[in-house]
Structure formats: structure tokens, C-alpha cells
């Protein structure tokens, strides 16, 4: 019996090691490609006097602290106001969000708040409802804590001259880098994720991800694809796979940089990671088989799609691997478990902890010219177990969702906006 258990655990660890190594190789390929490969030209360089009518949707739930910044930055945008409507989607707010939005609406005719106090709360539900009232052929989505640069909307919509592009995604840059260790870490993590990962995936014609904010999508395609699934928390990832499985593409635009507010508290970050993981894994369960069977994707896209789908599931299996190696250790079979440990450590830096190997973060830092911040990368070590644990919890949540067919409740990320961060907004006025 013990021997069978040992054999089973060894096979499990072996398979896991291979998967972890494949992830590491994938990230090295991305990094080299981004660092030295020819990049794709962006559509943003096109100057076109014909602009479509667009609707900017900003889902909000109790955002009185931050909504001024995003609305002011959108008011200052150079997009012609006769071709623009801004729809702040007030989703069951209980603070002063409603009053502030109505005040804005009375001053600016292109701001048309959409108050939503019935139905289920949640970003995906709010957007589904708001799209119904939006008049724009292109729907642009920003989260409420973002600060939009003046020319960004114009640059963003140019990607839709490509008939294949159904959604476009920009780059997210944390505004509160200096706040603490967590925000510094998230900043470097974001850099690696966007500057290298997303950009390489776009360049290699794989599966760049629509990230749900600093992004836009075609309204007609969105409605034809059945809008967001209200049961899925990661509405962005879901839309990405829907788009690719239906023969469209997501374009990633590295130039469309936008400030966001990164969580400053580990506890809130934990909730965020858990929610992302839960949502992402819901997408995994929903699209795993359709992805494999799809006739719209090339083999390489399917492989990348699988890697992408499993990103938030692998930590759970890694954690199981940790326990498996612990069992093997006490059963007297240290060899395989020690090799697993070694690979776990490789993975800690290579693939997980931040979804990017240290080399990928270094690549992003070189490209972004972050001469000094790059030195804090070793400290990612301390977030490794944290991420492993909370991502695994998210995976478990998603499994329970499937079994019990329960409806997930959206928990909003708390805001930390202080006056100093808003200075950028004041400059904009």
C-alpha cells in the first residue's frame, strides 16, 4: 500500500516538475522576444479625423474617494466631446457616489450616470446592464481608481480599424509605487506582466489578455457573444477567451499607459488575489474543453491559451506537491522530494509568486529603465508563499462554485487614495 502511494506521489511530482519547467521556458521565450525581437507596429500612430462615437463605462461601488480624479481626467481628454459619452455605472453605492455623479452630470452633458440599485451587484452585472444604455459603437472601460492621460482615448480606438480586433488592452502602471513594499512589488510585477508578457504574446500572435480596465471592446461583438457571464468573477479573462474562440483577436497596446492604485494592504491584496484566482479558474473550467476543440485557433495559440488558463490553477497543484513531498519525506523517500523542493524553489522565482520569472521582471526593468528598483526583486521571495496560499484558496472557491453551482458575490478592492497621489490629476486641469 505504502509503495503504491509512494509511486503515485512520485509520478505526480514528476509531472508537476515538467509543467513548472515548461512555464519557466515559456517565460524565457517571452523575455528574449521582448528584449531583442522586432516589435509589432502599433495602430496608434494612425491619425484619423473620422472618430467613432464611444461610450466610456466606469463601474463604481462606493467610490467617493477616487471618482473625481477619473472624471476630471476624462473631462480633460482630447477626444471630441460630441463623440463621447461617459457613463459612470453606480452599482449599489451607499456613500455619496450618487450625489457626486449627479452633480457632474448637471455640469457636463456628456457625463450620463447610470444608477443601478436592483439586480445583483458586481462588475460583470453592472457592465452588462450599462452596455444596454450605451450608445457608442466602442465601449471603453476604466476602473474608478484610474487616471486617464489626455490623448489615450483617441489612441485606443484606432486599434479597431483592424477588423479582426474585438478588444484592446492598455498597460496598467501603479501610481502609488512608493507607498510600501507591497506596492513596489506589485509595480514590478505589473511591469513584467505588461511590458514583457502581454507585449510578447501580442507580438507572437498568441493570446494577449483583455484585462477588464484600460481597455475597450466592440459593442456589437460583445452583445453577439452573449455579454459577460454573471457567474464568472473574472469577466475580463472570460471575454478574452470568448473573443479568441469566435475568431476575433485582442490587441495589446503597450503605449496606452494608465495609472491605477495598487492595494497597499496585504489583507486586501489577499482578497484580490483570491478573487482573481477564483474568477480565472471559473474561466478555466468553462473554456478548457472549448479551447482544445476550437477550430478558430492555431495549435500554438491553443498551447498558449492552455498555459494562460492554468496560470491560477498551477499554484494549487504546487501546494499539493509540497504536501506530497512532505509525505514522501517521512515515508523515507527523500530523493524525489528533494528534487521537487529544488524545482519548487526554481518555480518560486521562475514562474510563481508573481506569475513571472525573475528574468522576466529584470527584462521589464531594463526596458523601463528602472535602474534601482530592480534590486528589490529578491524580496519577491517573501510573497511567494502568500501568493501560493491565496491563489490556491481561489482555486478551491472555484471548484466549490462548480459543485454547488453557487453565485459568486463581488468584493470590491478598498481604495487608499491620498492627496499626494492626486497631484497628477490637478496638473491635468
Amino acid at each position, binding site marked *: 500500500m505504502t509503495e503504491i502511494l509512494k509511486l503515485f506521489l512520485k509520478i505526480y511530482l514528476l509531472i508537476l516538475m515538467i509543467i513548472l519547467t515548461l512555464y519557466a521556458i515559456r517565460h524565457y521565450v517571452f523575455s528574449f522576444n521582448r528584449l531583442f525581437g522586432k516589435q509589432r*507596429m502599433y495602430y496608434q500612430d494612425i491619425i*484619423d*479625423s473620422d472618430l467613432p462615437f464611444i461610450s466610456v463605462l466606469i463601474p463604481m461601488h462606493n467610490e467617493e474617494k477616487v471618482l473625481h480624479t477619473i472624471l476630471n481626467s476624462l473631462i480633460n481628454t482630447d477626444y471630441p466631446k460630441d463623440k463621447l459619452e461617459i457613463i459612470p455605472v453606480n452599482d449599489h453605492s451607499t456613500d455619496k457616489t450618487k450625489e457626486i455623479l449627479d452633480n457632474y452630470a448637471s455640469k457636463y452633458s456628456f457625463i450620463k450616470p447610470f444608477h443601478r440599485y436592483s439586480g445583483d451587484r458586481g462588475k460583470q452585472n453592472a457592465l452588462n446592464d450599462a452596455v444596454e444604455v450605451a450608445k457608442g459603437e466602442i465601449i471603453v472601460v476604466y476602473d474608478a481608481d484610474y*487616471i486617464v*492621460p489626455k490623448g489615450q482615448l483617441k489612441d485606443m480606438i484606432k486599434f479597431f*480599424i483592424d477588423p479582426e480586433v474585438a478588444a484592446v488592452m492598455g498597460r496598467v502602471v501603479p501610481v502609488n509605487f512608493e507607498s510600501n513594499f507591497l506596492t513596489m512589488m506589485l509595480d514590478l510585477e505589473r511591469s513584467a506582466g505588461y511590458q514583457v508578457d502581454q507585449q510578447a504574446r501580442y507580438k507572437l500572435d498568441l493570446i494577449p489578455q483583455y484585462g477588464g480596465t484600460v481597455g475597450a471592446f466592440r459593442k456589437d461583438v460583445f452583445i453577439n457573444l452573449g455579454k459577460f457571464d454573471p457567474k464568472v468573477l473574472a469577466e475580463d479573462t472570460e471575454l478574452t477567451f470568448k473573443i479568441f474562440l469566435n475568431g476575433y483577436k485582442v490587441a495589446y497596446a503597450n503605449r496606452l499607459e494608465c495609472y491605477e492604485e495598487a492595494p497597499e494592504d496585504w489583507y486586501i491584496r489577499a482578497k484580490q488575489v483570491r478573487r482573481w484566482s477564483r474568477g480565472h479558474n471559473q474561466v478555466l473550467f468553462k473554456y478548457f474543453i472549448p479551447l482544445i476543440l476550437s477550430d478558430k485557433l492555431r495549435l500554438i495559440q491553443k498551447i498558449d491559451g492552455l498555459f494562460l488558463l492554468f496560470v491560477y490553477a498551477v499554484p494549487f497543484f504546487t501546494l499539493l506537491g509540497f504536501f506530497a513531498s512532505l509525505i514522501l519525506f517521512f515515508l523515507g523517500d527523500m530523493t524525489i522530494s528533494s528534487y521537487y523542493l529544488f524545482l519548487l524553489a526554481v518555480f518560486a522565482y521562475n514562474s510563481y509568486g508573481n506569475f513571472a520569472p525573475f528574468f522576466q521582471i529584470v527584462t521589464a526593468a531594463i526596458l523601463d529603465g528602472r535602474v534601482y528598483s530592480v534590486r*528589490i526583486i529578491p524580496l519577491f521571495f517573501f510573497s511567494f508563499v502568500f501568493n501560493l496560499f491565496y491563489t490556491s484558496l481561489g482555486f478551491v472557491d472555484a471548484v466549490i462554485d462548480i459543485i454547488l453551482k453557487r453565485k459568486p458575490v463581488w468584493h470590491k478592492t478598498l481604495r487608499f487614495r491620498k492627496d499626494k497621489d492626486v497631484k497628477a490629476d490637478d496638473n491635468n486641469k
Partner: protein
Amino acid sequence: MIITNNPFLFIFQYIFDNLHLALWQIVLIFAIIFAIPLIFPLYELWRKKEGKLNVDLLYSRSPDYWGKSYLNLLLCTLSNNLNNIKSFDDIKNIEADVLLELNFCFDKGKDKFFITKDFVKNIEKITNAKKINFIVLNTNNSVLDKSFVFDKEVIIFGDLILNSECIFNSLIVLGDLYINSKTRVLKFLHVEGKVFINNEINIGNIFYASDSISVLAPVAYKRIFSPRIISKEDIDEHKYLNVEENKRIEISGNMKVEGKLNIESKEKYVIIDGNLICNSDLKLAGNVWAKNNVFSQENIFLSDGVIVGVSNKIKSVVARKKVVINGKVKIYGYVHSEQESIINP
């Protein structure tokens, strides 16, 4: 005693032989070398030398960005340093032909400005050198019939006629520009009027003309913007509409091609309504009118009668490598390439 002839181990050998380390000392050494790698990241975490990544919130794409922002800086510099200067009109009225040293608004460094009504006539009072290493403000129309190398920016507050070979760092003309001699511009050429190119010109980066550009001699460039860019001679797009139905081919909707795209037409008139997007070389030749944007991940070749865009609108021709224009071509708007391109009328 341990003996090694390995140079790599020499230092250890030395330590072990000379310092008779106690057990606790070795543990201490381990603790220290364990701590060393943590020092750098923790120090960086503490001092936070770099701030957040700077995202320019005022950034807005515009082809006249270089010229406009330079003019704004110039106005700022002059109004900070000289009394009675509030607008460009005030600059035009400055009488002096003097060399002033002023604090430049951009980098707070000192820069020399030569403000004159007639540069060619008055430069001899200042220098006989061919290389001019100060900013030139010509407050009136100007005819350059001597060769110069301008190491700094030149701003002409009227029309400019170039009759002699010159090199400009950057040239801003607030009237029309006539290029009758071989000219080279290093950074940008900004013209608030019409441009007539009758001799070779090489523009390092951006060429902007707010009215029109008429090209009769080769132009090397990277980006060109003008509401009307005419190479060789004007083409009347009305003939596309007036021609018999069976001589006209209309392609509507956006078109995306993975491989090369080649549209050539001598007999028939082709009207392409939507955007043209190509992942490889894109060639349009003959009677082809692309009413919308033309985009390629490689090169774009336009020749012999091609029209891009529609009158009174701005459309773009964008390529990752070159945009090569040969013969009669008309473009309403913007041409963008990442490598040095050429217009050969």
C-alpha cells in the same frame, strides 16, 4: 593542515591556515554571508531612489507637437527675459539685430539668440563663420542665398526661400517655404503654410506643414503631415466618380491581409472604401484611391496615380519599415514610417 594548489581555493586556504576559527566564529561567518544578499534589496526598499514610472498625463498625439511645443518654449523664454513680449506679434516688432544670451525655459540653461530682421544681411556683423551655433529668429520674410550650417533652431516669422545649400538643426517657418536648393534638416521641419519642394531635401524626423506640401524633388523623411501632400502633380479624384460604371471597381469594408498585398490598376479605377491593413509589404499603384487608412507591418509602396484619403479629412499611411512614394501620388494627411523613407516624384 590543508594543502591545495587550486588558485580558486587559495583565499580559503589562507584564512583557514592563519585564523584558527572557533566553531561559533564559523556560524557567525555563515550568518553574515547569509545576510549580505539581503542588504541590497532592503537598502533599496528603504531609500526608494526611483519614484513611480512616469506616465505623461498630458500626452496627446499630434503631428505638430515638436514645432508647437518649441514655439511655446520660445515665447516663454522671451517673455521671461525681455519686457514687452507677450505674443509672437511682439517678437516680430523687435528692432534690434543683436545676439542675446537668455535663460531658456526648457532646461534653464543659457542659450544665445540672434534676433534679426534680415539674417543674411546682418549675420556678418556677428560672425563670418559658416556654422551658426546660436538660435536664429528672423522676424521677417527671408531669402537664404548663402550656405550655412545651423547648429541650433531657426525660426522664420515670414516666408522663406532657400536658394543655397543649408543644414538646419530644426526649422520653423511661420509663412510659406520654397526649397530651391539642396537642404537637410536634422530634427524637424515645421511650416505654418505651404511648402514647395523644388530641390532635394532630407528631413531627419518630422515634416509638418499646416496647409500643403508640393513635392517636385526627392524627399527623404520619416514622418510627414499635411492636409494635402502632392507628389509630382495633382490628381483629380473626381475622375474616379465620373468614370463609367464598368471601368470602376469599388471595394467596401475594411480589408486585412496576412501576406503581401498588391493592388495595381492601369485601365480601371479602383476605389477602396475601408481601411487597408497588411502584415507584409503593401503596394498600391496606378488608378487606386484608398479612401481610408493604409497600414503595413512591413513596407508600403505608393506610385503612379494613387490617392490616399479624402479632401478635408486626415487619413494615414503607416508602415513599420518604409513608405516609398514614386511619381504622381496624393495623400490627405499623415505618412509615418520607422525607417528613413523617400518620396521620388
